[in-house]
């Protein structure tokens, strides 16, 4: 589904503090599976996620999504693709403070021009599914960490994306909540979504919910093993 060929990514290119976050990544990620990128901080997991999720373009190399080359797409198309096909759960959740859970969840749908009632119904369905219906109108900063993450998940799913990307999803959760999160992930994969996450949490990497673990270090893939 997602193919990366000889992908490199530099920050501050051409300056004295030039830094290659990714250095020659070749990777193919299958659809309908849960893939985990794992490695110490600074290993390039998050950068790789931004490339996969069309948040950024590689400095060199090619990225393909469903066979189509996306590394050369203009910003506009990249944004549309990102909105339609990817949902993001950020490490800090990145919810917009002061707005209600529902308003936050509906945000990615705003530029789509979908009728309001359709988006609202979908948000209600997601809130229900994530057991958040009772917190619908609550401001997000009043929610607990676990609730905030579930709002972030619901927001990632509002446009019904094929791929869900999660950056260090369990970093701010205790064990119970982390297990709960993994269970949610598994249900997504089983309904046909592709899940890609980064983590260095053993709980995630060893979980049965994760089908494939990719080990990274210094911007390269060092080990790559599939589940049975």
């Amino acid at each position, binding site marked *: 589904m997602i193919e990366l060929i000889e992908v490199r990514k530099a920050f501050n290119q051409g300056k004295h503090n030039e830094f290659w976050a990714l250095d020659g990544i070749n990777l193919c990620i299958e659809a309908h599976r849960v893939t985990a990128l794992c490695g110490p901080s600074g290993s390039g997991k998050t950068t790789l996620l931004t490339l996969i999720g069309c948040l*950024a373009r590689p400095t060199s190399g090619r990225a393909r999504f469903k066979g189509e080359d996306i590394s050369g797409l203009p910003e506009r198309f990249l*944004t549309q693709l990102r*909105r339609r096909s990817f949902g993001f759960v*950020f490490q800090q959740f990145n919810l*917009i403070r002061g707005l209600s859970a529902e308003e936050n969840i*509906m945000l990615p749908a705003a530029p789509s021009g979908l009728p309001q009632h359709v988006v609202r119904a979908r948000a209600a369905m997601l809130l229900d599914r994530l057991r958040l219906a009772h917190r619908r109108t609550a401001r997000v900063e009043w929610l607990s960490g676990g609730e905030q993450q579930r709002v972030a998940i619901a*927001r990632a799913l509002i446009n019904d994306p094929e791929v869900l990307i999660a950056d260090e999803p369990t970093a701010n959760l205790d064990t119970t909540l982390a297990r709960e999160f993994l269970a949610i992930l598994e249900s997504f994969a089983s309904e046909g979504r592709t899940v890609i996450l980064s983590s260095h949490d053993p709980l995630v990497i060893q979980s049965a919910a994760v089908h494939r673990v990719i080990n990274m270090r210094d911007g390269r893939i060092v080990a790559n093993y599939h589940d049975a």
Partner: protein
Amino acid sequence: MNIWIEQQRALIDFTLASLARRKARNLGLLAVYTLLVFVLASVALFSHALRHEATRVLADAPEIVLQRLVAGRHDLIPPGYLEKIGNIRGVQKMEGRLWGYYYDPVIKANYTFMVPSAGGVERGTIVIGAALERVRGLALETGISFRAYSGKLYSFVVADILPHDSELVSADLVLMHEDDFRTFFEFPAGHYTDIALAVANPQEVRNIAAKLAAALPDSRPILREEMLRTYASIFAWREGIVLAILSGAILAFAILAWDKAAGLSAEEKREIGILKAIGWETGDVIRMKIWEGVLISLTAFLVGYVAAYLHVFRGGGVLFEPVLKGWAVLYPRFQLAPEIDGLAVATLFFFTVVPYTAAVLVPIWRAATTDPDAVMR
């Protein structure tokens, strides 16, 4: 089309929801903004309508008024001037006018005493302006005494009151008979305050004025067009701003609005990054911000303008009264005809809506072009 509308509605929803987060602050800004538009629009509407009214009412003022100056002060027209003017061709009619000011220590107000050249006021009676009726508490057939500058006391009976509809030109008038006027002010016989001239051919007015100035070098002719120009330019923009005593307030508000609109906080920057990361295009972010600017400034403009309209044309411009009245005691009560200068309204619209919306947009441009992956770093 439907998609576009839904999109804008969603963007407006988000804008309003984010504005609602700092409700007090944004409502306060809106209130100050509205108030500013209200004052500016009031001044614009009032001064335009007053200019219009004055030039219409005074359209048939004397074509030329001839004053005499002595050492830079008005002086009386001595006998013989009328005869000298008589020789100038083109003067259709001329008459010496008698008028002057009287300070009434009872209510500490200045009146304009005058003798109507057409006559019509009996000796011992006066015809008074409506403000006098109101402030001095006079009624028809009541008597009133004025102490002349000579110290003598003279009594008059109010024979008539000038119509309230004409207060704007007649509020402080006291019309009297010529004999009464001369006795009261001990005005020397044969002297006049000034001379009003009628000219047969309007094209000739300037020539005649030049001849008058040449024939009577101590005189000063004032043309009707000059009188009208005085009113056509009354409360021009400079005086209008003083009237509003606003220049300082405008600047203060500009700074406030700029600070609020242009100062993009770290929090807002972060939010724009989030919006971009979750699939908003730069254009969506900008459209959302345009809506913010337009909603606030358009609301302020519309509400402020409508309030100003009601204030000036339905409320008689009551808030201007203390400013226009100054130290005066008599003040006419008047309703202006709502003559509206479309260009002024358009200008006001432009200068209230556009700069604010632009101020909202300036920093957004910078933030919206930042990379969407910034939130992940």
